[in-house]
């Protein structure tokens, strides 16, 4: 028989639509509108999971996102999802769920042995053992890890898509219960932009679980429907069901997770994203998240079937499910009487166990009128059953409530509905740095004040009457709107919502039992992580008194529910042990997110191809045709080499390098950073930024510069050209472009705001074809109207004109030591010019080359690459480039530091050439140079190889490196031991290996 616990009528489920699902391999039926929890309970399935540490059987505790126990693995294969809270999983056809943290099955779990051994595993036991024999921890750890953890991560890629959305609004209402709806209504009526977010599929909050509530004389849900209808008609109101406000950051920046299509079932979302992540900047926030019921801390209060009283009521009224036939309501307050009455009406045999001595008032009378048996001044001291609760033992309490006395009696029970009061959900408020206040009457923390613009209302604000919630909501909505600049702040009258008043509660944080604490029975306050009241005592005993220590030592509040049902109880127990008031114990800091947040949703569209744009130059399509092999440099895809018929990198690079120096080569240099610098102080600015002199540079002339940081260490380099009196074109390294742009701005904005200088990144505006080699002039001459006569267009100059028919700036600068021209054209002409040069270059034997050959060619010349031959610890002097440091300049970045004793000391690491004894050996970059090779490390190192290549033009391997006292070591023979044990002899040399006089460049 299916759905044995389903009531014959009632609930908000659609009985016309049966939905099939499986749990742990067994097929069940539920109805549309069910959650996985309600459907399991309808089928009388109570055992749904095993706890973290003791592997104790656990069932559904709650009806909301605070669920610590009923946590399952949903779906299979690439859509499997661990740790899903069953009350938050809407049922769909074909849903597959499996129990977690158990093997071989939830019914028979080998790990259950932990429960038998639980006396050996108190809180923190692992700190006291597993230390011997030394070095064994990783072995123990292996076992511990396997038994810890909860669900399984998928091992395949997620097939679903996610969206993110950034919005501004005037009023964000978090929570769509009665107070949130009321707030949204009055705010919406002013025309303000309102976002109303509700975690559940349906709006109404507690009213959904309350069959009797009325507003204005009509069933309360009618008011909910009418309010929603009015909100829907408002253009500026966005209504978001299934949307949890997950976090509250500074300046009213909040995030929310909308579960867009999860409820349709895996793969049924069509074109819609699975989830949408909202990032919301709200002028005003109304927090209306309601309250969460507290469990009672009695012996063995964790058995499947022990539930929060309010949850039982929700399952009855909202889902038409009576989770059991024998319901024991165990309470310290009147709110649980509603559950008792509803369960009774639904046909259960109900017994109330009330710890209060003389509960009185309307609720008690109502229960009595229904002949519900009430045991007063009684405690549930323990439960029976293992996989499911079968009964409770109750005993009279002593006068001070600290113990029990007299006879115990057993009551059959398949459901224990417990309530020890309510905790307003203050997580978001607290995340937003709101300060809390302990309310003695409510025995819970409530919002006090906060620096951001928000208003807490309803149960989340400690207001538990329907009328009170309505009135707070209505007022907050108009106030928030008014503060955001909408409406006049007038509050409509609160509709009548009469209820029977509730009496006082009796606070016994710990329910005593017939045995001393910690002996035999377990009083869980934290279900998921198996933390008991005895553990709190142990923590205190061992000195873990601060709440944060308590939390960390006992793992209270560290589960997937982040302590929603456990925190206040734990704090209260600690306060009792320490005999201080609860606020003295304090609360732990609430950390985002409110409920766990799907990573995929936060990543949104920024995954796969869209993770991070691949930057490509204008010439990229031609590179593709030419079969380029690429290298990632920063975000750029740069051709590394252009292999011909099966060449490997080495062969291609040797060919490319040789040919550049023989005929002409062309490289795509578009990725170099380019910054346009203008303003009357531009020259002075460069004079400060670079180490060399810039004031007298003529218009149309280019100069190479080094940039140092404040410590005098080189951090970027490049050629900058004066385009006009107040106008410069700066180039930077490819990888350093962004860093340099920020650097310039930082100095301009923070240190030299008086300078009139404007920097604009123009990296992507210019496409650059770099021609290098003896024939480059002849080739370029074919396509340009610029006078290339070396007398008129000298090395380190720039000319404007046309190349291949399009306007161009041609810079005569060289990174290869050859005659070279960098042809800059607007991006859109880049491919055209590149292609034209290839075409015209055929008769000159033009070779295309990539970054790898560029590296070899520059190394042959001893030119550095900032970031490869420098590492943030190298001065210009260390590079033997004192010539570039302006001796007469009054100031520039890094100047002061050159005078520091360590920076100016002799014997620093200096850049030198390094030649291997065997010319065929190419040392690995990163290898280290030593004076004396020892049998084994450690060895004293002199420095490392920063660049190392086989050079076809020098005819041997060449290398550069930073070596201690390198300049004085030229000619010395040293050793390079490699990690494989081999050793190579090397000679320290000058780093210029080719055309030492530099005649080719200027030719």
């Amino acid at each position: 028989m299916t759905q044995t616990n389903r009531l014959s009528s009632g609930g908000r489920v659609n009985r016309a639509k049966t939905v099939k699902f499986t749990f742990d391999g067994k097929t069940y039926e539920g109805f549309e509108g069910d959650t996985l929890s309600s459907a399991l309970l309808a089928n009388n399935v109570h055992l749904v999971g095993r706890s973290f540490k003791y592997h104790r059987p656990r069932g559904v505790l709650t009806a909301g996102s605070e669920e610590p126990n009923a946590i399952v693995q949903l779906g299979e294969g690439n859509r499997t999802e661990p740790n899903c809270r069953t009350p938050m999983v809407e049922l769909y056809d074909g849903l597959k769920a499996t129990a977690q943290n158990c093997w071989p099955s939830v019914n028979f779990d080998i790990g259950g042995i932990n429960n038998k051994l639980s006396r050996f595993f108190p809180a923190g036991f692992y700190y006291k053992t597993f230390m011997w024999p030394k070095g064994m921890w990783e072995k123990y750890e292996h076992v511990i890890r396997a038994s810890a953890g909860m669900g399984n991560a998928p091992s395949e890629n997620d097939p679903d898509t996610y969206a993110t959305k950034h919005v501004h609004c005037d009023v964000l209402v978090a929570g769509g219960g009665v107070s949130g709806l009321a707030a949204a209504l009055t705010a919406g009526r002013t025309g303000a932009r309102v976002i109303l977010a509700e975690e559940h599929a349906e709006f109404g909050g507690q009213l959904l679980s309350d069959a009797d509530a009325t507003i204005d004389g009509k069933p309360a849900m009618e008011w909910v429907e009418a309010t929603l209808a009015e909100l829907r008609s408002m253009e500026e109101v966005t209504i978001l069901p299934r949307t949890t406000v997950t976090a509250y950051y500074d300046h009213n920046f909040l995030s929310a997770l909308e579960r867009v299509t999860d409820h349709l079932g895996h793969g049924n979302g069509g074109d819609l994203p699975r989830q949408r992540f909202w990032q919301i900047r709200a002028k005003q926030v109304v927090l209306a998240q309601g309250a969460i019921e507290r469990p009672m801390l009695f012996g063995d209060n964790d058995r499947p079937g022990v539930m929060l009283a309010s949850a039982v009521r929700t399952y009855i009224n909202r889902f038409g499910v009576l989770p059991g036939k024998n319901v024991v309501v165990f309470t310290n307050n009147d709110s649980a009487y509603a559950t008792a009455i509803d369960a009774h009406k639904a046909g259960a045999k109900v017994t109330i166990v009330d710890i209060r001595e003389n509960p009185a008032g309307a609720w008690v009378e109502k229960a009595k009128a229904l002949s519900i048996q009430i045991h007063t001044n009684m405690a549930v001291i323990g439960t029976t059953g293992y996989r499911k609760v079968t009964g409770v033992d109750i005993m009279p309490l002593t006068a001070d409530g600290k113990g029990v006395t007299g006879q115990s009696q057993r009551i059959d029970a398949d459901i224990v509905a417990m309530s020890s009061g309510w905790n307003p959900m203050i997580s978001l408020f607290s995340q937003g740095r709101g300060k809390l206040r302990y309310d003695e009457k409510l025995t819970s923390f409530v919002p006090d004040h906060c620096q951001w613009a928000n208003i807490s209302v309803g149960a989340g604000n400690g207001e538990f009457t329907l009328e009170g919630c309505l009135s707070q909501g209505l007022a907050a909505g108009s106030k928030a709107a008014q503060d955001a600049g909408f409406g006049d702040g007038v509050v409509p009258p609160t509709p009548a919502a009469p209820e029977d008043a509730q009496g006082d509660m009796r606070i016994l944080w710990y329910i005593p039992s017939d045995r001393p604490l910690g002996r035999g029975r377990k009083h869980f306050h934290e279900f998921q992580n198996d933390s008991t009241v005895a553990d709190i005592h142990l923590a205190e005993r061992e000195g873990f008194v601060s709440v944060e220590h308590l939390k960390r030592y006992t793992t209270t509040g560290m589960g997937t529910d982040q302590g929603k049902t456990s925190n206040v109880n734990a704090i209260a127990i600690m306060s009792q042990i320490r005999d201080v008031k609860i606020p003295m114990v304090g609360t732990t800091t609430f950390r985002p997110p409110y409920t766990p947040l799907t990573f995929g949703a936060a990543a949104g569209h920024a995954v796969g191809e869209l993770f991070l744009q691949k930057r490509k130059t204008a010439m990229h399509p031609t590179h593709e045709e030419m079969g380029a092999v690429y290298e990632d440099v920063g975000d750029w895809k740069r051709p590394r080499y252009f292999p011909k018929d099966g060449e490997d990198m080495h062969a291609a690079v040797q060919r490319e390098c040789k040919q550049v120096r023989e005929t002409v080569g062309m490289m795509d240099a578009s990725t170099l950073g380019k910054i346009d610098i203008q303003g009357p102080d531009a020259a002075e600015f460069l004079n400060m930024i670079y180490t060399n002199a810039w004031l007298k540079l003529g218009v149309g002339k280019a100069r190479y510069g080094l940039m140092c940081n404040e410590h005098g260490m080189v951090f970027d380099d490049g050629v900058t050209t004066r385009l006009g009196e107040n106008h410069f074109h700066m180039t930077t390294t490819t990888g350093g472009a962004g860093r340099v742009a920020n650097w310039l701005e930082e100095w301009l904005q923070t240190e030299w705001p008086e300078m009139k200088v404007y920097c604009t990144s123009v990296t992507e505006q210019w496409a650059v074809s770099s021609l290098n080699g003896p024939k480059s002039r002849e080739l370029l001459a074919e396509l340009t109207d610029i006078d290339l006569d070396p007398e008129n267009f000298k090395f380190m100059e720039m000319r404007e004109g046309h190349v291949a028919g399009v306007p161009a700036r041609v810079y005569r600068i060289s990174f290869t030591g050859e005659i070279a021209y960098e042809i800059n054209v607007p991006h859109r002409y880049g491919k055209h010019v590149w292609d034209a040069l290839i075409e015209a270059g055929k008769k000159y034997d033009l070779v295309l080359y990539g970054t790898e050959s560029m590296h070899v060619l520059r190394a042959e010349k001893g030119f550095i690459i900032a970031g490869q031959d420098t590492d943030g610890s190298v001065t210009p002097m260390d590079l033997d480039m004192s010539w570039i440091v302006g001796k007469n300049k009054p100031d520039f970045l890094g100047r002061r530091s050159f005078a520091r004793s360590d920076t100016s000391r002799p014997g620093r690491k200096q850049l030198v050439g390094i030649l291997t004894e065997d010319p065929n050996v190419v040392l690995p970059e990163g290898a280290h140079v030593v004076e004396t090779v020892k049998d084994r490390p450690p060895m004293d190192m002199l420095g490392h190889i920063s660049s190392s290549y086989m050079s076809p033009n020098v005819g041997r391997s060449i290398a550069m490196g930073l070596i201690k006292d390198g300049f004085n070591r030229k000619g010395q023979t040293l050793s390079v031991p490699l990690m494989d044990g081999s050793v190579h002899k090397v000679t320290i040399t000058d780093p210029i290996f080719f055309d030492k006089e530099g005649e080719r460049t200027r030719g």
Partner: protein
Amino acid sequence: MIMKKYSIFSLLRNSMSYHENWQKNWRSPDPKSEYDVIIVGGGGHGLATAYYLAKECGITNVAVIEKGWIGGGNTGRNTTIVRSNYLWDESAAIYEHAMKLWEGLSQELNYNVMFSQRGLLHLAHNVHDLQEIGRRGNAIHFNGIDSEFLTPAQVKEMVPLINLNCRYPVLGALLQRRGGNARHDAVAWGYARAADAMGVDIIQNCEVTGFNIENGVVKGVETTRGSIKGKKVGVVTAGHSGVMAEMAGFRLPIESFPLQAMVSEPLKPCINTVIMSGAVHVYISQSDKGELVVGAGSDNFVSYSQRGSFDMIDHIISPMVELFPFTSRLRMMRQWGGIVDVTIDRSPIVSKTPVENLYFNCGWGTGGFKCTPGSGHVFAHSLANGEMHPIAQPFSMNRFNTGALIDEGAAAAVAH
């Protein structure tokens, strides 16, 4: 008080008495009027300093003064990565010193700090990364510290769920097998318990509000629980070091930034090593509880609030999903922040100061947890001898005058 030893037997024995006879891990003494050494800051580094002072230097008249609860600063907030594969000789020396102490720490403290040498990978995603790990790997190796290079295939073998062909394909990795992680709280607690047993007073909920300095010599501290005399004072206050220096009348080249981290919900084991990627901007490991522990970069603004912007967290989520696509359907359970003390060269300051007998140990920034034992050890010896321990000498604050910086950040661009 005699510290009762923890062992499997004591656990069994105490189980028989329902765990009612465990003793306090540390006392809660009232401050004495005078100590030989006052340590300000009850983080891992401060507690370790106190421990080694008592254990190795015979100085037990020591107080650790903590404004909140011990381990509540960065010690209890970090992502617990432990490694010693630093580039520069000076760094390698101090971090390897720490690594060797880690390797026997649980036994030494009789407290399981769960030091897990599960290996730590630095991924290389481009030629520049390969050059960086190439250089560092060699430097480490020839400093006598373990280091290995892995091919992408070997990376895949160690980390089956990684996406080698991500936006910046994995080209190789540097592995330190002895690297891994540890249980951060246990480190603070273990040191505290062992120090307390030797007579060190651990004074919580007591904030140092000023220093008593006479003629350039420190004489003690002012606290929220009155003034306490101290012959020597060691300040180990991480993110608040700048504030402390100001109290003592000098400035430190330190900026304090929020640094954030997050954990996923607990999962069955799926990542068995620590993985760090500079180019994709994420580092990740899995705790023994099963949570994926993921770290972010520091926020772009200075702050003393122990929380950060969402921005930073947001910026590590898509990189994580890119490198580990299996995480897409998993969920973030908690995010938090700490305040890290960042020096100009991203190396620590373990140093004397312009005030005589006042020592500072700070600037560990985003990566000091791993050095907790080493830092405490050399700092204790320095305090005891009045001369900086040789391993600590390069980390003198004088280096900012001489320029002898130890710039791990610029050279290796890896901070943790």
